[in-house]
């Protein structure tokens, strides 16, 4: 195996970005190929990690640990590692970014900056999923903000500036809360161990917090406070209602490739942080907050679905559907059962593929028809049959059609929440049934949208639109194929996740 594989994976996109900076801005095709090449090599590296990943082990693998910054008592380490939780997400980042770069080849203006920012964003995202040190995690978490800000504010739609500023401030505030929680975690652990253990390392902190000898200093209200702060910080990213209002604007205004990244990967950082940091370090609080999170999940599902039902803009509809779908993640996470948490991770991956495909399809259709208003489309099956077919397939995947990945994650999440113990979540079944009703609404808004866009009479002005180009087949077939692969043979994912999930649940249970 390649030494320091994770460092290679994380920083290779940055190397590509530097290379692009060295190229004159006129050579657009060279820039595009470098961007694509960089992401493909990163993808191959991450596939190597996927293959080399030991599925029987629950702990961190490919570990790298170097002392980095010395702050007196506190040593900050450059700690990298992947486990069953982060491995699928790592691969998700490289896959979605590669496909999003392919989908961005039609960007004409300021190509150089665009791909530079995308590659920097990729480094940030990859870093978040492998960092094992809170400081490093925070650094990468912040590193994702700036590229997105510029990507939206330069290449976005009509309302791009307010959208990008809202995104930046909202997420910046979330990060501020997060960093406070991190410092509280590290400092309280330092204090609790009689100033002997100064660390930002996640698993070291987890050990300290679970150590019964130090629990005297760490009161429940303190832990609850930190958990809540972390929840708020990650809620902004996920997003959880009512901290979601940056999302519709950002998703809608962002260019297609960036929407794919935002919805496909960026939102997953929130859920990942929740599982890795909140659940990892404060497992007992995970139980206390389970009901709260489950209710938030149901609210997310229904709220997003109801609002999606009345949207007139196709892209906005997908943005709200995204809120609704991430509610399922919350339901699964809240259940603190193996099935539920595995379902949540499945949903993260699956939603990543599906929502990216949906945004890509909307982008491709917008490029041709110049509208995203549902009522102005119609009869796309006639004018662009291939695109319409993929659009329909994406909608079907999104509404949880078996055989595609969405179904597996919904199934697991619901097995989890229905099976949640009554001590953890009272009335779990009621919550679960209400959540399941959300599935009907998902079908309702997606089918209604499909009925009015792909079906129906064709507008004469759309006659003779060009159907899918060869370049467009790559993301379409890639994303749908991945969704199909997971849907038909979920073991390919579950054998990576399962051991780690068992470990997480046993820590929470024990």
């Amino acid at each position, binding site marked *: 195996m390649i030494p320091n594989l994770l460092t290679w994976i994380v920083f290779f996109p940055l190397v590509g970005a530097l290379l692009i900076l060295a190229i004159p801005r006129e050579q657009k095709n060279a820039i595009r190929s470098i961007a694509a090449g960089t992401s493909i090599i990163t993808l191959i590296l991450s596939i190597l990690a996927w293959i080399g990943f030991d599925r029987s082990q629950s702990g961190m693998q490919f570990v790298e640990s170097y002392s980095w910054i010395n702050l007196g008592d506190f040593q900050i380490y450059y700690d990298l590692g992947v486990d069953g939780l982060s491995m699928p997400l790592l691969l998700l980042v490289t896959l979605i970014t590669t496909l999003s770069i392919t989908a961005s080849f039609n960007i004409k203006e300021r190509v150089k900056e665009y791909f530079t920012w995308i590659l920097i964003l990729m480094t940030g995202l990859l870093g978040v999923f492998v960092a094992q040190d809170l400081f490093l995690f925070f650094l990468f978490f912040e590193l994702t903000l700036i590229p997105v800000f510029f990507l939206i504010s330069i290449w976005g739609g009509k309302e791009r500036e307010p959208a990008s500023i*809202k995104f930046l*401030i*909202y997420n910046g505030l979330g990060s501020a809360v997060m960093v406070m929680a991190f410092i509280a975690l590290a400092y309280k652990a330092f204090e609790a161990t009689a100033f002997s253990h100064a660390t930002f390392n996640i698993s070291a902190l987890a050990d300290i917090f679970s150590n019964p000898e130090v629990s005297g200093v760490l009161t429940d209200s303190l832990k609850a406070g930190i958990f809540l702060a972390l929840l708020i910080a990650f809620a902004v990213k996920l997003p959880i*209602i*009512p901290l*979601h*209002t940056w999302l519709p604007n950002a998703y809608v205004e962002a260019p297609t490739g960036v929407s794919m990244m935002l919805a496909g990967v960026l939102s997953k950082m929130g859920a990942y942080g929740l599982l890795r940091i909140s659940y990892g370090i404060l497992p007992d609080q995970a139980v206390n907050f389970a009901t709260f999170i489950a209710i938030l999940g149901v609210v997310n599902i229904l*709220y997003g679905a*109801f*609002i*999606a*039902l*009345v*949207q007139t803009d196709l892209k906005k509809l997908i943005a709200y559907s995204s809120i609704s779908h991430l509610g399922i993640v919350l339901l699964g996470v809240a259940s603190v*059962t*193996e*099935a539920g948490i*595995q*379902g949540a991770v499945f949903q993260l991956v699956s939603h990543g593929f599906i929502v990216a495909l949906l945004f890509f399809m909307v982008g491709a259709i917008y490029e041709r028809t110049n509208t995203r208003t549902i009522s102005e489309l119609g*009869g796309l*099956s*006639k004018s662009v049959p291939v695109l319409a077919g993929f659009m329909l397939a994406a909608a*079907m995947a999104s509404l949880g*059609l*078996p*055989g595609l990945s969405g*179904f*597996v994650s919904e*199934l*697991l999440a*619901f*097995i989890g929440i*229905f*099976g949640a113990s009554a001590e953890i979540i009272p009335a779990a079944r009621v919550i*679960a*049934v209400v959540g*399941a*009703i959300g*599935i*009907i*609404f998902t*079908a*309702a808004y997606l*089918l*209604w949208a*499909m*009925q009015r866009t*792909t*079906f*129906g*009479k*064709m507008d004469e002005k759309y006659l003779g639109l060009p159907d899918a180009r060869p370049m467009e087949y790559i993301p379409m077939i890639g994303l749908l194929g991945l969704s199909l692969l997971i849907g038909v*043979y*979920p*073991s390919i994912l*579950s054998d990576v996740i*399962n051991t780690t*999930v*068992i470990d997480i*649940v046993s820590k929470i249970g024990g």
Partner: protein
Amino acid sequence: MIQNAWLIPVFPLIAFVVLLLFGRVLREKAAYVGITALALSFIFAVAVLFERIGGETYTFVVDWITFGESTVTMGYEVTPLNAMMLIVVTLVSLVVHIFSRDYMHEDDRIHVFYSYLGLFSFSMLGLVLAPNILQLFIFWELVGLCSFLLVGFWYYKPEAASAAKKAFLTTRVGDVGLLIGIVLLFNATGSFEYADAFAAVEAGLISDTMVTVIALCIFLGAVGKSAQFPLHVWLPDAMEGPTPVSALIHAATMVAAGVYLVGVMYPFFLASDTALTIVAYVGAITAIFAATIALVNHDIKRILAYSTISQLGFMMLALGTAGYVAGLFHLMTHAFFKALLFLGAGSVIYGVHHRQDIREMGGLWRRMKVTSVTFLIGALAIAGIFPLAGFWSKEEIFASVLANGDPFLFAIALITAFMTAFYMFRLFFKAFTGEFRGDHEPHENNGFMTLPLIVLGILAVVAGFVNAPFTGHALEGFLTEGIAVGEQAHGGFGLAVVSLLIAIGGIFLAWVIYGKRSISEDFLPGKFRAAHRLLMNKYFMDELYTVVFVRPCVGIGKALYAIDRFIVDGIVNLLAVVTRSVGSGLGKRQTGQFQTYGVVTIIGGIAVVALAFMLRGYFG
């Protein structure tokens, strides 16, 4: 051979993939790809059935997913029930494939049509072969998808697009129930396997309430798929799809999947009397409810659709009254004669140039001989005339309802049987006898369309014999082997005569009104004006759902969207506005004179130091 049963669904899948990739090249030749695939499937299905008779149940599974300590498997299984279903599905699908070659040849998307048919056949056969309920659910949803695609095949017609959506959504309501049932079952038993579920019930591991809840959730899925009251509203609208699709999906196979589901889970249902009673009552209500609507409808396909709903209700009624074999036997015979009737209707519609209103038909008997004769056979079969298939299966149902001892249910069954005979022959007399009332002269169709009719016509005659007294109720022996479904009731000679008399009564009344015209057609509607209006409007169910479900949901959506934009986002924007205005307000106070700033800074600094002195004694 039985080990190769997995190939049965794979052939249509191959056809689907081939047509998806090369359909545009093949065009009309697509039909032959589909027909070949289904013919192979049918041959395999026959071979599997013969091997299964007298053989053993064969199961093959592989691991599908692991979570925690649980492992879920997928694979296939050949039991007597699904061996029978394989024959029904492959046979009906094959004849529909053949029939569609001509019926659809004018459509330039015929290859798409055949690819969807292939996907459907794959899904339906997969559903039948599923060894556990989760896999059944997976294919259950896939057949729903195919139904959606095929109902919406003529997507440019707004009615078709809307019907497709309605079909998918309405069944989705049931599907969510089914999914909940499956998940609850899993949580109760830790497995999706049928056998584990039955064993857990038998061992009393699941509380009685839970058994009832799970059974009802599963039944909700069946209600949606088999268009039982109150989720039946999608099936009549689904007639917007091409007629061969209606024959295959919305008459013979997919809609019967709900009945099949209850059949597969039957030992589970038997453990809960409440669940069984509800199944019986829902079936009975559906049967009579749909039959009454069929009495007054004018659209040839919709009459058949309501008839299908009604007959599915009959099957549920049988299952609900412990008539396991009766229900599934009727499923089989119904598949044949209803497919026959639908294809007959398709032939008629094709012959009269795409008209569906029976008021614009008439006198087809002389013009379309083969269609008329086979249609008559189908009508006689569904009415329950000796010795056609429907007679035997209906009589079994009567027997089980009678044995169950609920007079109310028995009365409904008899009344419905009477109505069935009446509306079928109302249709027959109006469309096939008298004078032709359309404007284009109808014509008989060629062999590709009539051959399926003849095949199904023969089956509609003989299919009932497999469970007739003179064959020793062979089907019953086959289906009940190795599964505890209780004693099956049989009617005697008396019951047979009663059911025959009722059927003849219905036919006679139809003949009096529509054949001989001794009583005017408008006499009864005129007499019961309100009732007629109610029936013509299908009991206003669609309108009711619009008012009760659709509008409130859209209303809630709009309200929430307003809240989202103006209140939730409003608060955020308000914060932004406040921050900005405070900032610019304070900004106005700034003179830009650095000397002023300096003075303020120094005074501030001195104040801080002074404070530190006073409060903390920091320097002291």
